[in-house]
């Protein structure tokens, strides 16, 4: 089995050698991720709020108590990447950051032993990731290129949660890393010999291992679907 893998890898590299013609690109992009953070479940929520799926089952209401729905955070995305593009294959890496900029806060209801009371909740998350991806380049007409590929990323971030009511006040912060999988699809419209407009979709899937903070624990979920657009600057060179 190992020999088959080695021979296959050699065939792919040999067959691809002649397509490595050409350019290095620098990409600057920004966008948004509609939902980040996964369930945002923590041990404290299970123990004190009877909430076992984080943000997915924390919303409760009762007549006489005004609450506001806690929606999943929306993330702002920004990044810079470098890409090596051949005739048909590309390799890419860079650095991207995702920061929750909306959502994630509101209020719910819980009984801590002296009747139902309103609990103000706030979830926030930020993480950066370094993707390493490869894939296929498709030239479409003369001005358009489509990219499809995948790989993995190193992601590191911090998740914070806070819960406040008349009888309790609790804040927790967790930091950790994970290796999410990356699948991406993008297209670019070539403006000049050295610049193009870019848009794309990136799907990250993965989460950290368990992170403990005193008696509390959680996993940081890096899973997200990001929509981004930006500019690409090409630097062509001839490969030997």
């Amino acid at each position, binding site marked *: 089995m190992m020999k088959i893998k080695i021979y296959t890898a050699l065939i792919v590299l040999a067959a691809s050698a002649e397509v490595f013609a050409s350019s290095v690109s620098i990409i600057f992009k920004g966008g948004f991720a509609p939902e980040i953070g996964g369930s945002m479940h923590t041990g404290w929520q299970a123990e004190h709020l009877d909430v076992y799926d984080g943000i997915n089952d924390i919303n409760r209401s009762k007549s006489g108590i005004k609450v506001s729905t806690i929606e999943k955070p929306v993330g702002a995305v920004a990044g810079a990447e470098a890409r090596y593009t051949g005739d048909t294959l590309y390799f890419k890496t860079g650095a991207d950051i995702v920061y929750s900029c909306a959502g994630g806060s509101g209020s719910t209801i819980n009984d801590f032993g002296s009747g139902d009371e309103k609990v103000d909740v706030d979830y926030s998350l930020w993480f950066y990731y370094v993707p390493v991806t490869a894939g296929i380049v498709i030239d479409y007409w003369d001005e358009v290129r489509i990219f499809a590929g995948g790989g993995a990323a190193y992601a590191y971030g911090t998740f914070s949660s806070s819960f406040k009511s008349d009888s309790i006040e609790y804040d927790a912060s967790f930091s950790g890393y994970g290796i999410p999988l990356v699948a991406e699809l993008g297209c670019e419209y070539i403006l000049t010999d050295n610049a193009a407009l870019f848009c794309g979709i990136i799907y990250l899937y*993965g989460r950290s291992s368990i992170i403990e903070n005193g008696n509390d624990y959680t996993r940081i979920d890096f899973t997200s679907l990001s929509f981004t657009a930006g500019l690409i600057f090409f630097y062509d060179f001839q490969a030997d």
Partner: protein
Amino acid sequence: MTKYITGIIIFLTLAAPVFAAGSFSTGILFGVDAKGGSVGKIADDLNYEMRIIKAGDPAAEVEEIPVYYAPSLTLNFRYLYDRLMLQLGWEYSATVLYNETGSVKPTAAPENKIEIEYSRFTFPLSAGVVIPAGKRTRFYMAGGFNMSFIMLEITQSDPGSPAMFSNIPDETSSYSGYIPGFHFKVGTEVILDRNYSVLFEYTRYMSKSLAVESENKNSEIKLGLDTFEIAFGINYTVDTGL
């Protein structure tokens, strides 16, 4: 399983008249199963029970079971006719080189180490369309049904009496079963020369979870295939002279 094979034979027989022209190819892809097949859900359930044990015994030590991606190897046999594609695959995915492990150490009992070993064979039958995108590149979209044979073994170093996990009372619990399902895939292909091409493929597997009894009939677990894979590979088109 018999019904599945019969369905394939009937489908191929009905489609036989179109095999007058077109191309045959075979491919090998290396990929990653994002949720480790069924392991993700099973590990989450065991982790939840471990946390319930800790809630009742705050001094207990818990190490949750992580879920890693499972590598996969796929062999494809494909027939292309004009813009239509018919593909039969053989896929193997397993938690090779590592098994997911966790542990729970109650205050008044020995530590119980839990290990999950998982592997599956999946046979996807896909039909779809090929969309050319240039002289040497094309997209394809396909879907179909698949049959998976999933093997799972959960070992515990000290399950306890009464059992710590009521639904897994034995030290070793082995489960295996056939799980039918559906899938959808999209991919891109770059033709390198007359016979070779490079592929990138995203596949989404969907299936219901079916209850499977352990080999010794002492316990039951739900097995399914609800996951996605990304894979890269190489395809070889056979010169048939057609």
